């Protein structure tokens, strides 16, 4: 395996490995399905978004009756607390310090 690929995989570990079948079928990991609100029977489209990367998108947007707010408040939300608990501090970290002379 190429070194860059090892480095990439180490940097972004995948939670569950699945294999593409002979006819192209793949199993969507339960966690990914829950996070995306995709349920059995939903219709999806697949969109290639880069080399080795395919996006699976539910047709018609969000699942019926599925609310972002409920999901975000649930234990399933992997974003809970990951930005550090101070959103503006997170933004300031990325954008750099606001020059003192122009602070209001």
């Amino acid at each position: 395996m190429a070194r860059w690929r090892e480095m990439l995989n180490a940097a972004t570990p995948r939670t569950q490995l699945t294999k593409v079948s002979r006819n192209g079928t793949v199993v969507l990991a339960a966690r990914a399905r829950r996070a995306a609100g995709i349920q059995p029977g939903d219709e999806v489209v697949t969109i290639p978004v880069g080399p080795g990367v395919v996006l699976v998108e539910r047709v018609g947007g969000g699942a019926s009756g599925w609310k972002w707010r409920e999901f975000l408040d649930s234990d399933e939300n992997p974003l809970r607390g990951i930005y550090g608990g101070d959103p503006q501090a997170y933004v300031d970290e990325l954008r750099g310090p606001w020059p003192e002379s122009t602070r209001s």
Partner: protein
Amino acid sequence: MAREHPLVAAVRAAGGGFLCDTAPLVYRLERTGPRTLLAVVDVLFDRVEEGALGCLVSVLSAAELFVRPYRVDPPAVTVVDGFLRGPNVGVVEPSLGVAHGAARLVARRVVPRLGDAIVAATAADLGLPLVTADRRLARAVDGLLVQDYV
């Protein structure tokens, strides 16, 4: 009929669409921070989810939202991606007009940080109000500061 929240009313008065800076989006997604502030952000985004308001996001904010998830938790990337593709939410592609607007803001020292300027210029280019949690940016470009609506 319940009285409309002042921030929702302010966005409605401006046409119903708004350009959201990164921090309010983080409040919505991360679910941490002062409860009163979270409540204001939730009122706004609940209306977006209902289809009463439309939320546009600068590509810069979208990138900022992805940074931490890419660092720590790949499944979190899919949640941010799904949110940005959700109903009544859209990511604004970069344009030369936004580049000019952002450059003017920095050159004239209205907004010192280029990242802030790109977000503010995106809002101006679209003619939408900017919703932000940054008091300095809100004052500089007359944006809607979520803390003012707590």
